């Protein structure tokens, strides 16, 4: 698997969520994603970037355009140095929220992409990696 291009975007304040969505939209377009797949990916980005700002206290979005034997995909890593998630199973339950949300961001994002990985521990920050193939 080859990394064709990569980069990083700070995700610190609410306006950065908009920038993250715009960048993801552009990159997904470059990968040749169909409108439905692109919309799903951008929506997942919106959820994860907002969690990074709201719960993670801000972080970064690293992106990679992947080339896997002719198949193009976009991989995004949202990482923060925030409090981390104490109970991963609970956080990955539809409708569970520690704030005033709908509790659908993480689980929804997982359903909207092809690959989803959550790496977090209390006091260790949070890293969510998602991949969507074109």
């Amino acid at each position: 698997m080859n990394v064709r291009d990569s980069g990083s975007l700070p995700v610190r304040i609410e306006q950065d969520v908009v920038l993250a969505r715009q960048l993801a939209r552009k990159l997904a377009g470059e990968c040749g994603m169909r409108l439905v797949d692109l919309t799903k990916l951008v929506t997942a980005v919106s959820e994860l970037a907002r969690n990074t700002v709201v719960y993670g206290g801000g972080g970064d979005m690293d992106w990679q355009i992947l080339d896997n034997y002719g198949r193009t995909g976009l991989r995004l890593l949202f990482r923060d140095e925030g409090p981390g998630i104490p109970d991963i199973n609970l956080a990955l339950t539809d409708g569970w929220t520690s704030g005033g949300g709908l509790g659908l961001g993480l689980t929804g994002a997982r359903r909207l992409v092809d690959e989803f990985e959550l790496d977090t521990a209390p006091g260790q920050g949070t890293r969510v990696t998602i991949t969507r193939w074109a």
Partner: protein
Amino acid sequence: MAALQGSTLDAINSNQEQLLEQWIASLEANGATRNLKEQVLKQETREFLQLLSEGLQSGSGNSLAGAGWDAVRRFLEKLSSTRAQLGHDSHQTVYFIFALKGPLFALLQAHYRDDPATLAEQLWLISELLDSMGMHTIRTYQASRETVIRRQQEELLELSTPVVKLWDGVLALPLIGTLDSQRSQTVMESLLQRIVDTGSEIAIIDITGVPTVDTLVAQHLLKTVTAIRLMGADCIISGIRPQIAQTIVHLGLDLGTLTTKANLSDALKLALTRVGGDLGQRV
């Protein structure tokens, strides 16, 4: 420590007219006078030179933080904000200060012709002083610019949430662009207010122009609809495009309690059957 000398101040004071003339010429040559009336520029430069002279006189040294430079700082702050409002960029604005360097240095060169050591020292000090004035100008310019931008954003916020009356008793709110928390709040408030003002029974929220519907947007929509119902009116969401519909399903959002239509005209038809209007007769 070296200080700016009385002799330097004398040189400035006794050559004011020449300095002003060269300074204005330099400003003009560098496009820093755009949209400025000649009269205003003359007055500004003269006033600044006067304040500079008073500042030097006060012996506050060449650090702009000193109390003797209060008047200069205030002058520069006012200058920055008027320039920001005139649409001048930061370069044009700060050039007001930097354009004075050339004429001032030339003056000191002539004045200390026979004393290169003092010349070097005085040039250095006056240069430091002007640089710190430039920095102060840039900083306050930035702040003024941000204020201007914030005001424009707020105006845009108002503009981009037009609530239109489609029919007696039917309001429509076409949403365009991203719905962040602040904008959603404004949108919801103006819609609720219009419902009261017009005594409308049905509001149509059209989301054709909203690129992403995520949990936050959905939450705002649900809250708005709940509030509308509490007021005894009803709400239809229109403009849910196919890709958005599929995304909503995967996201797990339950919009089953909402009345939705594919487009605005279908929504209007439904609204009319409810308020008893007839599209065929009046259009």
